[in-house]
C-alpha cells in the first residue's frame, strides 16, 4: 500500500491510537463483521460501527438511496433514507468482540442512538462498551426517520438534550472516549459543539448528513428515492457536501474548541487531499462513507499513499505537524485586507480560444475580458484591468491549466479592513 518511508500516519484521536487517520463512518459499510474485516484488510485504520439501538431492531424501507449527478453523469452526492442497524443488538456486539480480538491494532467505535431517557442511553452505552470498543459515538445527527421518533437530529438540534444525553453516557462509561456526532442542519454549529463539551464529550464527529431531497422523479412525480410512489427527505452526503463540512469544522476549530475536543471530520472525503484539508483545519482524523460506498474500500490505498507523499514533500513527520495550520487564516470577512488586489492575466501562448473566460465574465461577472481578432486570424482574449475585480471566475472556467493567472497588483498600500475603511459609514459616524 504505502511503500515510502518517512512520515508516520499513526495518530491519536481523542486519546485513541490509530494506525492512520482514516476511519469508515457509521453506515452500511460498517454494519457487519464481513464488511469490517474487508475494510481492515484494505488498510482502514478504524471504523465507526453502524449505529446500534435497543432491540427490537428497526425495519427499513425499500428503496433507500437517491443520487445527485454532476455534469459528467457521475454521482457527486447521494442521499439515504436508511435507518440505524436493523440487525439484533447481540449479533452486532458479538461480531465487534471477535473483530477486536482479531484486529487489535485497529479501532472500532460504537455508534449508539436512544430516546431521551437516562436508562436507555446508559444501558445501551454499557452494553456496547463491554463489547470492547475503543470509544462511543452518539448519533445526534440522523435527519430522517429516527428524528420522527425523538432520536437522532431531534436531539442534536436541541442543545440541552444533546448535552444531557452526552453527560449520561459519559457517566456510564467513565474514561472511555465519547464522541458527539453533530448534525449540520442547524443555524450555528458552535451551539451543539459547546453542548457536547459541556456534556463531557472528548470528541466531535461532524458533519452528519444534510437534510435533502436528491431529486424528483418526473414520471412518478415523487421525490427520489421513491418508495411505492412516495418519498421522504433524506440525508445528503458525498463530495458535494465537503464545502459545508469544511466550514463547520473550521468554525469549531477557530473558536478554540478543537483544542478541547478532538475532531473526527466527516463530509465528502474521498481522497488524501480531502483528508489533508480537514486536518489543516484542525481535524485529528477523518471518516469516510460515501466514497467507499461508491468505489469500494480500496480507495484508502491512495489516501494513505498520497497523504504520506504530501507530508514528506512538506517535511511533516506526523499528522500533528500540520494539523490546524490553516485555522489561523480562517477569519471574519471584516478582517480581510481590502487593499489587496489581483487581476487576471491570460497567457496567449496557452490560450485555446474557447471563449469561456469571455462569456463567463461578460454574462456572469464584470465585462472585463475583450475579444480581439489577431492579424493572423484567430482570437485573443484581453483583460481590461480597469474592469477586472480579480474574482477568479475566468480562471475557474478555463479548461487549460496555468493559462489564466491571478496576478497581485503591487500597489504598496497597507492592510485596510472594512471597520477601518474610509467608506464605512459606521466608522465615519464614529469619527
Amino acid at each position, binding site marked *: 500500500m504505502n511503500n515510502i518511508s518517512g512520515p508516520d500516519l499513526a495518530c491519536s484521536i481523542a486519546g485513541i491510537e490509530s494506525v492512520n487517520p482514516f476511519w469508515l463512518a457509521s453506515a452500511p459499510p460498517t454494519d457487519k463483521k464481513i464488511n469490517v474485516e474487508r475494510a481492515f484488510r484494505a488498510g482502514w485504520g478504524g471504523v465507526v460501527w453502524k449505529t446500534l439501538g435497543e432491540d427490537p431492531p428497526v425495519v427499513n424501507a425499500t428503496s433507500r438511496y437517491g443520487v445527485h449527478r454532476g455534469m459528467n453523469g457521475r454521482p457527486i452526492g447521494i442521499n439515504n433514507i436508511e435507518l440505524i442497524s436493523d440487525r439484533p443488538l447481540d449479533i452486532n456486539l458479538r461480531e465487534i468482540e471477535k473483530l477486536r480480538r482479531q484486529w487489535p491494532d485497529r479501532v472500532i467505535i460504537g455508534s449508539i442512538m436512544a430516546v431521551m431517557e437516562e436508562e436507555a442511553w446508559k444501558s445501551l452505552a454499557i452494553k456496547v462498551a463491554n463489547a470492547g470498543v475503543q470509544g462511543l459515538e452518539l448519533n445526534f445527527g440522523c435527519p430522517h426517520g429516527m428524528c420522527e421518533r425523538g432520536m437522532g437530529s431531534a436531539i442534536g438540534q436541541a442543545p440541552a438534550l444533546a448535552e444531557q444525553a452526552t453527560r449520561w453516557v459519559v457517566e456510564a462509561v467513565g474514561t472511555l472516549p465519547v464522541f458527539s456526532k453533530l448534525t449540520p442542519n442547524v443555524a450555528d454549529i458552535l451551539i451543539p459543539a459547546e453542548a457536547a463539551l459541556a456534556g463531557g464529550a472528548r470528541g466531535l464527529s461532524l458533519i452528519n448528513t444534510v437534510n435533502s431531497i436528491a431529486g424528483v422523479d418526473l414520471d412518478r412525480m415523487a421525490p427520489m428515492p421513491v418508495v411505492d410512489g412516495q418519498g421522504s427527505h433524506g440525508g445528503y452526503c458525498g463530495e458535494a457536501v465537503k464545502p459545508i463540512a469544511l466550514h463547520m469544522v473550521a468554525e469549531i476549530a477557530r473558536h478554540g474548541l478543537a483544542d478541547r475536543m478532538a475532531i473526527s471530520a466527516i463530509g465528502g472525503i474521498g481522497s488524501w487531499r480531502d483528508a489533508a484539508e480537514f486536518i489543516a483545519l484542525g481535524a485529528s482524523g477523518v471518516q469516510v462513507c460515501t466514497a467507499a460506498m461508491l468505489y469500494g474500500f480500496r480507495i484508502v490505498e491512495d489516501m494513505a499513499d498520497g497523504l504520506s507523499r504530501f507530508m514528506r514533500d512538506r517535511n511533516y513527520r506526523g499528522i500533528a505537524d500540520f494539523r490546524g495550520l490553516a485555522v489561523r487564516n480562517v477569519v471574519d470577512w471584516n478582517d480581510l485586507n481590502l487593499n489587496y488586489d489581483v487581476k487576471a492575466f491570460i497567457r496567449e501562448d496557452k490560450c*485555446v480560444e*474557447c471563449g469561456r473566460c469571455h462569456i463567463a465574465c461578460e454574462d456572469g461577472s464584470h465585462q472585463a475580458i475583450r475579444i480581439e481578432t489577431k492579424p493572423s486570424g484567430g482570437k485573443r482574449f484581453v483583460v481590461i484591468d480597469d474592469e477586472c475585480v480579480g474574482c477568479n471566475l475566468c480562471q475557474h472556467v478555463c479548461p487549460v491549466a496555468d493559462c489564466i493567472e491571478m496576478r497581485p497588483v503591487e500597489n504598496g498600500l497597507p492592510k485596510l479592513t472594512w471597520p477601518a475603511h474610509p467608506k464605512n459609514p459606521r466608522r465615519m459616524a464614529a469619527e
Partner: protein
Amino acid sequence: MKRFIVPEPGVAIGESGLAANFSDLHPPLTSVQAATEAFACLFCYEAPCVTACPTAIDIPGFIHSIRHGNPLGAGERILSANILGGTCARACPTEILCEGACVVNDTEGRAVKIGQLQRFAVDAVMERGGAHPFPRAADSGRRIAIVGAGPAGLAFAHCAAMLGHRIVVYDAQEKPGGLNEYGLAAYKMADDFAQREVAFLLGIGGIELRQGRRLGRDFSLSDLQRDYDGVFLALGLEQPAGLGIPGEALAEDALGFIAALRRGGPKALPVGTRIAVIGGGNTAIDAAVQARAMGAGAVDILYRRGRDAMGATPWEQELAANAGVHLHFWTRPVEILGTSGAITLRLTDTQMVDGRLESTGSIRDFPVDRVLAAVGQRLHEVIPEGIAVENGRIRIDAEFRTSLPMVFAGGDCVTSGADLTVQAVEDGKRAARAMDRDLRAATNGTGRQGDSHE
C-alpha cells in the same frame, strides 16, 4: 476505425464477409457513449467548430442538449441549420471541418466526436417519427421548380416549403437523394439512410418529387420558367471529367461504379480481381475501399501528385490503407491498352518542375483487370439554354441568382465553397431564402432587395 475483412489470396469474400464489410462505418453511439462524449465538449463561446461548419450548426448548443438528456432538442437544433444533418453526420469530412477546429484538440489531443454526436441526435428525431418538427408558413401562392433532388435541391425544397411556397422537384434518377443516394460508399449510408432522410424531409409537406424526369430531354428550362414563379437549378456535376488519354474508353467511371453498387447492393468480385483507381479525392477512396470490401484481390490508387495534395482527407487515406488499398503517388496513366478485363495501364512518373506537374519521361506497364477513373466531374454536356457559365460552373451572384430572371442555382453546379454535401445544403438553404426575398419583393413592388422573410 472499421476493420475490413480481407480474405486470403485465392479465397472468396463470402456473404458474411460482404455483410460485415458493408455494415455501418461508424456504429451509432449508445446513449451512455453519447452522454460521456458530450461531457468532453467545452461549450465554447463563438466556437471554432461552428465557424468551420458551412451550415453553422450550433454545435456546442446541441451537445449541451445531449448532455442534459434532451436529444430531440439537440436534433431539431441541428436540423434547423442543416436539414440533411443526418447525412452530413455520416459523410462529412469532419476532421477538416468541425472536428478539425475543435478546441479539445488543443486541450486533450483529440477532438470531440461531433459527427457521431450529431448522428445520435438526428437519429433520435427521425426514430421518434410523428409530426414533422418544422411548421410551414401560410401558403404564399407561389410555385417553385427545382431541378435535381440532391442535397442542394432537397435543402432548397425544405427551406422554401417552410417559407410557404409549393415545390416540384424534377430529378433524372429513379430515386431522390443525388450523390447521397448514388455517390457515397454504401457503408457510410447503411440501412437505406438516404431514402429515410428524404422521406423525413418531405414530411414538411408542399413538396412533390418527379423522378425520372431529365432536363433537356423531358422538359426544358423555358417550360419551367413559364410554369413556375421561380426555378432552382441543383444539377450537380453529372459528366465524368475523363482521363483524356488514348484508350480511356477502357476506364469505368468511379461514380458509376459506386452508383451501380448502391443500386444493386454489394456483390462479391471474382476472386483475385485487380482494380486500379485513378484519382486522389474521396470518390477515389470510396470506390477503392468498396472494391476491396467486395473482395478484390488488389486495389491500387494512382495519384499524379503527392499525398499532401490529395483531395481525400488523411482519415480517408487511413481508411483506405486499413482496407489494404495501396496508394501510389506521383504517377499517372498515359495510355490504356488491351481489352476489357485484360488491361494494361501505361504509367509515367510525375514531378513538379517550376510549379508545373511534368512527366519524368519514365514508362512502365501496370496490368489490371479493371480501371476506375475518379478524376472529377463537370457540368452535363446539355447545359440549359441561355444560362451563363463561368469556369465550367453555372455563374451566380452573391444571392445565388443566375443570368436568367428568377432562375437560381446552387450546389456542385456552381462555385460557392468546397464541393461537399454540407456546402450544397448551405447553398440550397441560402438560395431558398434569397429567392423568397425576391419573390416577396416582386409582390410588394419594393424591388429585389426589399422585404426579407427569415
